[in-house]
């Protein structure tokens, strides 16, 4: 199931999505067999994350509000990235900036020590930047332009579909030089505590509940003719194949690892039955 995307070879088109597998170091047997591991969102400065509750189960999925907990780019580059490089997989760093300067700072700190970058312009769980940032095609294009000036690595933009058209934002990102797009990030969601009448959680919805919508968004970007990575509630090889049919060059598995850390292996095995060997994309 080898595939070639943005000029890089991947052992298969099943990647691990940002935020649901830490840094791929806990379950190395899984990390070593997937096409790529995308890190948890890395910010310019350390972030302690949001107060609990951070996860609430909803029908066929969950709402999370982890709030980009991470040690910041410096500690990440010193302590975590070298360990990740020992994994037998491609490492993509999810870059989570709140300003254009943040993105530049993180990207410069990473240098060429990763295989690629996924620009997170769409996290719904942070106040500044985040998803509002990701709705504005011009700001996103500016981020891409500035990042591309400073790196030779392939740059993917992770798009949101919250109150905006990912096709519009995606097109501008590609015009600005992005090598590919990944979508969708989690959808705005909330839940109430009916005993106490207060808001229980406000965050991002993921899981099979969002899959049909994610498929629609991926399919919508087909006309751009660039590598698109499909994300959204993939639980099986069949689900992954659906995204490939919709035009995705690869997929990212997220929430499924919360139910079963070995889910990506199962998905790869099942996907082989659909695609046969030698999947060629992009």
């Amino acid at each position, binding site marked *: 199931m080898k595939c070639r995307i943005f000029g890089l070879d991947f052992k298969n088109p099943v990647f691990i999505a940002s*935020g*649901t*597998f*830490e840094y791929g170091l*806990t*379950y190395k047997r899984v990390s070593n067999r997937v096409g790529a591991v995308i890190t*948890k969102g890395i910010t310019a400065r350390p972030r*302690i*994350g*949001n*107060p*609990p*509750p*951070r*996860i*609430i*189960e*909803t*029908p*066929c*999925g*969950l709402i*999370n509000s*982890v709030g980009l*907990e991470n040690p910041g780019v410096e500690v990440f580059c010193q302590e975590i990235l070298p360990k990740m490089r020992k994994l037998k997989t491609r490492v993509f760093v999810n870059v989570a900036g709140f300003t254009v300067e943040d993105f530049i700072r993180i990207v410069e700190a990473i240098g060429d020590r990763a295989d690629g970058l996924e620009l997170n312009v769409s996290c719904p769980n942070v106040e500044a930047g985040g998803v509002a940032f990701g709705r504005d095609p011009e700001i996103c294009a500016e981020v891409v332009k500035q990042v591309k000036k400073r790196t030779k690595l392939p740059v993917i933009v992770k798009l949101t579909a919250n109150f905006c058209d990912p096709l519009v934002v995606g097109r501008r990102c590609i015009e600005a030089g992005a090598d590919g797009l990944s979508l969708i990030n989690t959808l705005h969601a909330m839940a109430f505590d009916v005993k106490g009448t207060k808001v229980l959680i406000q965050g991002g919805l993921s*899981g*099979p509940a969002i899959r049909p919508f994610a498929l629609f968004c991926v399919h919508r970007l087909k006309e751009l003719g660039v590598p698109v990575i499909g994300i959204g509630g993939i*639980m099986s090889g069949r689900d992954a194949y659906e995204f490939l049919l919709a035009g995705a060059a690869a997929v990212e598995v997220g*929430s499924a*690892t*919360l*139910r*079963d*850390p*070995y889910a990506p292996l199962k998905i790869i095995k099942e996907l082989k039955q659909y695609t046969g060997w030698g999947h060629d994309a992009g």
Partner: protein
Amino acid sequence: MVAHKLKISKKVWLTKNVFGMEFILPRIRPYPGQFFQVRVNEGFEPFLNRPVSIASYKSSRLLLAVKIVGRGTKMLSMKKPGEQLELLGPFGGKFKPARKRSLLIAGGIGMAPLRFLAEYLSARKTVFDLLYGVRASDEFVFRNKVGRMADRAIFVAERGYQKKETVVSRLRRMDLAGYAVAYACGPRTMLIELQKLNLPMPAYAFCEDFLGCGCGLCMGCAIMYKGSYRRICVDGPVLELGGIDFEV
């Protein structure tokens, strides 16, 4: 971590809404406080696994005690002996209890992990006392099993035929000088009250929460502990009671 597809070898109702499930699972070496992530079913409803602490593990027999608190645990309660369940684990930090005279403080279903702790201490010839409180006296679980292992066991109920008392009010009257360490598991309100008591010995809380992955991946089960967020699933579930900030 290993995924186990296991048959329920035995199922017993312990109270009207707490049941125990037994599985045969050889070759694991669980620590007190560790738990399994139980897959409720193969569909996506409910989506997440349910964390259930180990109540007993002896001669390859694993006992999990579950209280029905919502949809997922209700579905689990309908499983019958002979049916297969998928269990992931054991998860949780490897907590090694001190081999000193201990006090176990249990509230309600909090008894479940403390039963396994009691077995663990007994097997290591560590003497302990038990203080076990419930709301109504028909809610006791493993009362005799753990009572027999304890040097001294005190049972209290907030309502019922016995003297009306809570774990916390009983503790206030107890002489705690002889204990080197205390372990507590129970409702959050009980843990908060215990924290306010400023127990004279080091005290550990067996924490519980709704978990995402249960194995440190999702950072969903954050708890404010000694000034930073920790993950209950891998940094706990056993944490120093005094270090927990319940207000965050």
